[in-house]
């Protein structure tokens, strides 16, 4: 920790911020120090740490001081860390919080995550060494100390070599993965071309192609994740899969709907269903496509889309228009209500409460008072008292 110097924390001319991360603690080797909660900034030239509670307390370390860095995975009760091995401090270093240290490394402890991104960026900066080519307002503490050079040659070279090997191995894995990915994508591209050609044929022969063939084709597209331009108009985006899903949903959602007054927003449904599944989750599109089929399959639920674009699932037995009548009563009792107030009273989500009040307004039962203090609804006396 004796390599750090006090700083204003302002970036110099020619110095650029690369990434920053909150909730970082600094450790001097294995020992904790008082710098336990700060924002860690990586620039093209320095590593800067600023205390989150006391912004005046700010220290920095030139990147040129860094020999190499390692990752230390998180453990039980322990945050993930980056270990930064450093050159000895140069004799003309600016004053800092520590005069001396028995360690030649520090640890950056990421209490609020972010270590993966930070490590990646720091590695990049260490490779690019932009501080050497981008001069800044004041001289950088480049370590040209000959004594330091000699020490470096002895102990650290072995470690550096191992790290280089590890980097090469990782690089090899990544490049193999990319190669394989490219080959895979070539094959996927062929599939896309083929599907386009079939889609064109279908378009030309509209009416001559059997429903069965169309359904087969759509399920192929679904498997590949290819968008379906042609048959959407004729049979919708649904496939057998979505039909099954719709039936499943009708079973799963019956009770939750009853518990929530017969109506739920589609985002609520998405979360509920996926939380229950745990694995093999539904995509948002799967959910929407399945819900679009509810009515045609004569299931006891239906999809409804409000003017605002909000999508909900309702029990068939649920009659939003009837609910409007009771909403009117509630509003009349209280004189006037905002969506928030109404939601709290009735025990609904604010989103759906607002939709109900808007529907009541559309039907002429409520009037709005739209001001900066919020949107408030009143019983429509123009209707009842004219």
């Amino acid at each position: 920790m004796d390599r750090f110097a006090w700083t204003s924390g302002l970036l110099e001319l020619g110095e650029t911020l690369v990434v920053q991360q909150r909730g970082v603690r600094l450790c001097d080797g294995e020992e904790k120090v008082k710098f336990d909660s700060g924002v860690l900034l990586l620039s093209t030239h320095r590593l800067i740490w600023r205390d989150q509670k006391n912004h005046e307390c700010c220290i920095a370390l030139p990147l040129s001081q860094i020999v190499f860095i390692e990752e230390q995975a998180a453990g039980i009760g322990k945050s993930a860390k980056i270990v930064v091995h450093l050159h000895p401090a140069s004799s003309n270093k600016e004053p800092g919080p520590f005069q001396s240290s028995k360690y030649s490394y520090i640890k950056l402890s990421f209490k609020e995550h972010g270590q993966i991104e930070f490590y990646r960026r720091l590695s990049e900066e260490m490779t690019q060494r932009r501080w050497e080519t981008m001069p800044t307002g004041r001289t950088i503490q480049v370590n040209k100390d000959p004594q330091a050079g000699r020490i470096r040659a002895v102990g650290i070279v072995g470690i550096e070599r191992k790290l280089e090997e590890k980097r090469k191995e990782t690089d090899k894995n990544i490049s193999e993965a990319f190669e394989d990915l490219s080959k895979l994508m070539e094959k996927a591209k062929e599939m896309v071309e083929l599907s386009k050609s079939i889609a064109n044929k279908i378009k030309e022969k509209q009416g001559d192609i059997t429903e069965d063939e169309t359904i087969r084709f759509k399920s192929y597209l679904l498997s590949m994740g290819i968008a379906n331009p042609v048959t959407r108009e004729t049979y919708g985006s649904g496939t057998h899969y979505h039909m099954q899903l719709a039936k499943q949903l009708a079973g799963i959602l019956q009770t939750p709907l009853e518990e929530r007054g017969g109506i739920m927003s589609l985002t609520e449904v998405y979360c509920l269903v996926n939380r229950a599944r745990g694995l093999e989750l539904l995509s948002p599109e799967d959910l929407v496509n399945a819900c679009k089929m509810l009515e045609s399959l004569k299931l006891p639920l239906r999809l409804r889309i409000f003017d605002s674009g909000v999508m909900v699932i309702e029990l068939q037995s649920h009659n939003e228009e009837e609910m409007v009548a009771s909403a009117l009563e509630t509003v009349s009792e209280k004189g006037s209500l905002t969506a928030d107030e109404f939601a709290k009273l009735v025990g609904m989500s604010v989103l759906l409460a607002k939709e109900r009040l808007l529907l009541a307004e559309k039907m002429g039962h409520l009037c709005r008072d739209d001001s900066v203090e919020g949107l408030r609804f009143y019983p429509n006396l123009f209707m009842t008292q004219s």
Partner: protein
Amino acid sequence: LFQAKYKERGTVLAEDQLAQMSKQLDMFKTNLEEFASKHKQEIRKNPEFRVQFQDMCATIGVDPLASGKGFWSEMLGVGDFYYELGVQIIEVCLALKHRNGGLITLEELHQQVLKGRGKFAQDVSQDDLLRAIKKLKVLGNGFGIIPVGGTYLIQSVPAELNMDHTVVLQLAEKKGYVTVSEIRSSLKWETERAKQVLEHLLKEGMAWLDTQAAGEPQYWLPALFTELYSQEITPEEAKEAIP
């Protein structure tokens, strides 16, 4: 007669192609399985690789996240990763909506999602969040992505935000607040237009009014308060989110 023969030929051709596609699909599935057995971990652990993967899919016209039933999702597990992230994003936005009116910076969303996922979960990048959010749009809850400064504001309520609103948000991003005079001088608008936009943001709960500021009233955006980053989601707020 000629036309009938032509149509018949056409039918046969399409059937052939469907059969061909079916065979090629099986082959592709095998290739994908092989790829998955070697590199599935890479996708799960490496945000960079995920970006490459997504970009390549987009280039050839394939959406690996369209359906949980797609090959990509089933074999590579990409689906579950993003769909679960979708749930976490919805929950965070819902919990914080009363504070920020349904607008949140990508940074803050990132922080809160990471916190919610816990220490042992896979890391997610901001790119991952953006892709998950793009998929959530289809649920009709008003999810939107607004570029401001060098980053993005995420909208999670069905409030209408047009170009005027977006531009004012971008202006406010620098300091966290904006005034009518600033809008007039930076954007060259009349007072009336500026006021309309600001009032809309106030009504939606996305802006707060500070009438006690020196000079003229300041319109602050809670979404841009950096101090909020460190605040935990309270139990009450968590209850407001999906059980």
